[in-house]
């Protein structure tokens, strides 16, 4: 084998190795389909209340967040959107953020969905959301009176 042949062989092997990764993967059908885990977390983050006025619910959510020590950063009444944040006292480096959407449902009901993040990582513990909805319930009850 002369030198040229050796270089040629090495080149072919290298090209084969490099191109190996270029085989187009089959587009997977289920890529955007909801997984079980997603469904579970979504149901933990949502709750429906028997109140027909979504503004009342929104004000209740804002009051609940304030009771929990949150700072309301943004609110949009037509879209039913509330964004709030707080830092985990006494530790002022950790930030807890939450986005709540309030959507009117059929038959005089309103759905609340909350997404919480802790230091830009989503919280997936259902217990956290249970606590949040307990606070909202309390506050809505106060508003009604």
């Amino acid at each position, binding site marked *: 084998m002369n030198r040229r042949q050796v270089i040629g062989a090495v080149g072919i092997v290298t090209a084969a190795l490099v191109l190996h990764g270029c085989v187009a993967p089959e587009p997977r059908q289920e890529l955007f389909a909801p997984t079980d885990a997603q469904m579970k977390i979504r149901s933990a983050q949502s709750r429906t209340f028997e109140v027909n006025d979504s*503004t009342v619910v*929104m*004000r209740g959510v*804002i*009051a609940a967040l*304030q*009771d*929990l*020590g949150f*700072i*309301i*950063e*943004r*609110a*949009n*009444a*037509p879209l039913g959107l509330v964004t709030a944040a*707080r*830092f*985990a*006292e*006494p*530790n*002022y480096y*950790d930030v*807890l953020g939450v986005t709540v959407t309030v959507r009117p449902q059929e038959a005089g009901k309103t759905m609340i969905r909350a997404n*919480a993040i*802790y230091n830009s990582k989503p*919280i997936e*513990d259902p*217990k*956290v*959301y249970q*606590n*949040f909805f*307990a*606070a909202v319930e309390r506050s809505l009850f106060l*508003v*009604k*009176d």
Partner: protein
Amino acid sequence: MPTTRPNSKPPRQKLGGGWVALILTLACGMCLGGCAERTQPTQFFELSPESSANRAMQTRLFETGAENELLSASAASLQDLGFQIEESVREVGLLRAAKERSAREYGQYRNRFLIWLVSLGHLVIPVDLHQKIAATIVIRPASQDHARQEVRIIFYRVIWKGDGQADRNYIPPGEQKMEMIRDPEIYQQFFAKLSKAVFLEPHSI
């Protein structure tokens, strides 16, 4: 060519290093003391024992049906206190305002000098330089017929620290620190201004 220079005075250097290490350890210990009681994420949405006291401090009731007037009077009172309005949403009665001020304090400079002296010039701790004081107001009807309004204001501040030095390591400026303002006097001052503006007597909850 050698990249490091031969050390001419090794024993003295070592002594200095020991001192700095000791002081750094002490400083770290003091800083980390506050980290022990770290809040767990599950506790974030639980009402804290002091939340009702905070609520009472931050809330006043006004016997009026004019929510919009109350909202604009709140904005005016904040302006009187030097705040700039950053966000307002009339439908849910929300106002967010902020003002920026210097955060320099004599005591911090004195402590910095003392620590600098004790550490033989090796440690320059950062001091507070600048702060942003922010306020969020939410007004909502407190009764079914909208004849009574509840005004809740929350004050907090963000502080930016200056630069410092730990031995040969430069501490860059801009470290942030946030705190809620829990001084009742500040809240009383605001509500006194607001009640003067709307000619109404505020009621505590």
